[in-house]
């Protein structure tokens, strides 16, 4: 048993280099999450807006020729249909599916002329049986590639040239490509950091707080308190965790819970969230907390029962200190390392469970999350597009790996006897 305040243990922890690196990585993730939460440099609208054609690869790589033609076709058709509207000027001004880019400041006739130029090139390329094949073959290759480049230039002529400041944001938007609906994968993956960190922090803190309170009370007071708390956690622990999680998440996902919480707190929730009651993750938090508090409770109850019998606690009792002081000053610090280890374990469990719940349609409902991104990428993978599954997995992998390393180090340092 090593107290968390002990400097010897911390020195040992600081010598554990992977653990220190892992802590830095976690700090970066939390910082990004906080910056998104507080400054809103990525909004929910950014993550759900179309920024360009579907399934564009990342790092500025060119899609295969056939897809480049499809993309040009998409843009030309969209603008053409806008030009055919009753009020084309207004429709063109309202066109928003290009992310941070805008249409060039041209009149309708000029647009039509440039689109006709696109169709000229497009038709020439479409005469080929297989564009991909033609672009590779040595005879037709140069000509086809030149045609494709011309197509791209003509599409570019419909848009405003990228300004200095806008180009950075545009690079970010297309850094990791776009998903099936043409949304930015990078912005979605980064916004998901906020979602994951929130889920991990809130459920970890809630579960550890409930578990610690219950465990301390049960272990220290014994008797009826212990009986009731042991009964409670045995009850929850006897339902397989994933079953409990699924049942709870579905039952609370109807929106009744958020609404009633809002009612009880006198509209506090709505005020804090700015009228967006449907975007809370409260059902997820509550079902995770109810499922996860058992682990810390069991461990801390056992440890408290051991500590209660130690001489220094007995001495404090003899000295006549009150129960609260005993619990808070003498027992709590000595179980704090277990709180930390359990928090770290629950963070991982929460982030990973979010993926499973989101796949089953019970997790995050609005806005992006790694779980939703991975679930949606199933069909893209069948077409050989790996940018979405790769980005979401990569971002999640680094965070979970850092927490795995941190948990191991914490266990080594503070709880060496644990297997």
């Amino acid at each position, binding site marked *: 048993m090593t107290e968390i305040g002990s400097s010897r243990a911390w020195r040992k922890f600081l010598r554990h280099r992977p653990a220190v690196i892992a802590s830095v990585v976690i700090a970066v993730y939390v910082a990004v999450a906080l910056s998104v939460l507080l400054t809103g440099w990525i909004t929910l609208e950014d993550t759900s807006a179309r920024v360009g054609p579907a399934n564009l690869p990342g790092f500025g790589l060119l899609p295969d020729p056939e897809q480049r033609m499809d993309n040009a076709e998409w843009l030309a058709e969209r603008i053409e249909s806008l030009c055919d509207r009753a009020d084309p000027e207004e429709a063109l001004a309202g066109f928003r599916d290009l992310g941070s880019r805008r249409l060039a400041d041209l009149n309708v006739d000029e647009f039509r002329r440039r689109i006709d130029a696109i169709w000229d090139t497009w038709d020439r390329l479409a005469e080929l049986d297989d564009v991909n094949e033609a672009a590779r073959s040595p005879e037709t290759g140069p000509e086809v590639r030149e045609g494709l480049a011309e197509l791209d230039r003509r599409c570019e002529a419909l848009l405003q040239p990228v300004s200095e400041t806008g180009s950075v944001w545009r690079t970010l938007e297309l850094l990791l490509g776009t998903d099936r609906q043409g949304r930015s994968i990078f912005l979605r993956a980064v916004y998901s950091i906020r979602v994951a960190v929130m889920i991990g922090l809130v459920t970890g803190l809630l579960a550890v707080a409930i578990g610690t309170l219950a465990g301390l009370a049960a272990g220290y007071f014994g008797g009826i308190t212990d009986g009731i708390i042991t*009964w409670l956690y045995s*009850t929850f622990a006897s339902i397989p965790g994933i*079953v409990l999680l699924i*049942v709870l998440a579905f*039952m609370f996902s109807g929106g009744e819970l958020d609404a009633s919480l809002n009612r009880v707190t006198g509209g506090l929730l709505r005020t804090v969230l700015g009228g967006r009651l449907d975007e809370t993750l409260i059902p997820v938090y509550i079902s995770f907390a109810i499922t996860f508090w058992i682990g810390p409770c069991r461990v801390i109850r056992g440890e408290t029962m051991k500590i209660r019998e130690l001489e220094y606690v007995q001495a404090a009792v003899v000295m006549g200190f009150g129960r609260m002081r005993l619990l808070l000053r003498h027992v709590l610090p000595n179980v704090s390392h277990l709180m930390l280890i359990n928090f770290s374990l629950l963070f991982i469990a929460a982030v990973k469970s979010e993926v*499973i719940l989101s796949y089953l349609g019970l997790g995050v409902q609005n806005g992006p999350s790694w779980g939703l991104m991975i679930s949606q*990428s199933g069909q893209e993978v069948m077409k050989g597009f790996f940018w979405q599954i790769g980005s979401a997995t990569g971002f999640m992998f680094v965070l979970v790996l850092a927490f795995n390393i941190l948990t*191991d180090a914490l266990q080594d340092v503070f709880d060496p006897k644990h297997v």
Partner: protein
Amino acid sequence: MWTYLIRRLAWNVPVYLGILLFIMIVLRVRDPVFARLPKNATEQDKADIRAELGLDQPFVAQYRDLLRQVCTLSFDQESWSHPGQTVGQIMKRSIGPSLAITVPALVFTTVLSVTVALCSAWFRGRLPDRLLVLTSVLGMSISFLVYIILGQYFAAFRMREITGIDLFAISYDPEVSGVGGMEFVTTVWPRYYLLPVLTSVVVAMGYDTRFYRAVMVEESSRDYIITARAKGAPQWRIMFVHMLKNAMIPIITRVATTLPFLITGSFLLERYFGIPGMGNQLLLAVESLDFPVVQAFTAVFAALYIATILLTDILYALVDPRVRLS
């Protein structure tokens, strides 16, 4: 031992009653009548459906009915979303597909990960051990869902495209549902179940290898190992005869605690591969607010869970004479 057993059983009675109560209360957070109303329903329709589902009964009566079903093991209540079928029939039908994944997966995983853990402990601290530990930590940091998606893409889809070997099914063939017996094992199982089993083994290997390695490492520093070494016993004999035998206790415990999950099946695998097992059935029931099915399934899962924990304790005492149940 008998007094211990009886005391434990007695303690589990209130726990079990608590589970049934809890699941009934949680389910009633949402109103199942609402989802079953026809268009332009009147108050009368509402009341009729409520009565038809038996929800007009007082809560205590509903609780008593569930308790009766559990105690007599006759799940004869009709499912709400599958009219004409009792909960028992649904359970019987779905248990086979679940076991067809979970049993082979558990066997493969345990044998493989104990072997790998032994190898890892053999090379303790050296390169192979470090590589194995690193691989398992890396593997644990990737989501289950990613393994499933990529596994299906590469093992089933790409393999057929590149090599032309059509080993794993990609779409469902309705003819397979009636196949049973030996034919099931030789034709249907490899085609429809082997890939989910392999995926599950790969995912579980990371966790299990880590745990078993920790057990072996812990065991290898004990006195009897030092004695054996001092006697001049060869390394392989120490590993496979002395150590493995003593490491059996934690191994048995871990395997025993996963036994209830054989029945619950894997929700994710069953959902993704469209296998009509217990997990998939429970998910469907939860989504359609089919209370009888959810209640009965949870009751059975919880009973099995409690039973295995008890069994583990007894097994523990049988394997290790130092453990006394009191």
